[in-house]
């Protein structure tokens, strides 16, 4: 008896997925992909892949988070597709940074980066801060944004990101460095105006 129960975890039928999880997944996709059409395609791909993989659903997670897990892969796929249609150019400035002495010998860009003007750690429990953080990530430009999303938010490995974006690990390092710098600037501007 208990065996049978184990084999059939409590599954929300796929016919109800759109109403229950559609908006949630869509917002999630949109925050990563920006384009509404691509985001809704991504939701569709996620649902269809979810139906196919439903027999592997073990009920350990809520099905909503299980679907979100599938969506992670779909987001990476969508970014891979968009990279294929546009090549990632390396600017002279970025090239110089990769060739710089600091990077070659110690893996850093500068010994003296601009300091934070407020302590972000103190805001970690503040929900408002994360809303601003999300907006700031959305202001980043591609390919910096794509690199940041894949590596830092979707938690892909360096090798995976390099493969998806078709770039070298050195260039990924430059992109992440640029992302950190730009985030620091936008976060400072946005947060300090809200906070004051």
């Amino acid at each position, binding site marked *: 008896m208990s065996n049978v129960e184990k084999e059939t975890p409590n599954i929300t039928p796929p016919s109800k997925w759109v109403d229950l999880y559609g908006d949630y997944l869509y917002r999630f996709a949109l*925050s990563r992909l920006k384009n509404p059409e691509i985001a*809704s395609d991504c939701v569709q791909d996620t649902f269809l892949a979810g*139906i196919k993989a439903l027999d592997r659903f073990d009920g350990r997670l809520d099905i909503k988070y299980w679907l979100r897990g599938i969506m992670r892969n779909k987001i990476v796929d969508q970014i891979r597709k968009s990279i294929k249609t546009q090549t990632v150019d390396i600017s002279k400035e970025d090239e110089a940074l990769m060739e710089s002495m600091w990077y070659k*010998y*110690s893996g850093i860009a500068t*010994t003296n980066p601009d300091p934070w003007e407020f302590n972000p*750690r103190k805001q970690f429990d503040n929900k408002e801060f994360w809303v601003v953080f999300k907006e700031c990530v959305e202001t980043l430009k591609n390919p910096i944004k794509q690199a940041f999303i894949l590596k*830092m*938010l979707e938690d892909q490995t360096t090798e995976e990101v390099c493969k998806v974006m078709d770039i070298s690990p050195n260039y990924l390092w430059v992109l992440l460095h640029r992302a*950190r710098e730009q985030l620091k600037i936008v976060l400072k501007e946005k947060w300090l105006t809200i906070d004051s």
Partner: protein
Amino acid sequence: MLTCKQVSNSLNKKDYKDLSFVQRILLKFHVRCCLFCGKYNKQVMETQDMCRHFRENEDSIIESADSEISLNEDKKELLKEKIAQSMDC
């Protein structure tokens, strides 16, 4: 003892919280003391902390703050149809 390059390399590869206990202690010690890479790598670690916390908070933000963003009704109907189709086959 770790070199600056080793510290930077492991920070490039993964979140420092995912390193082993010993590695983490060595890395933190280096970053705290190093005149060359200390300031820079401290900021790298701060960004990692930030992103980790953001991921933990993201769900609640997505569920509440953006409530005006949603799939439009036509798209929802289309999705339902597609789901029904793929359930049949």
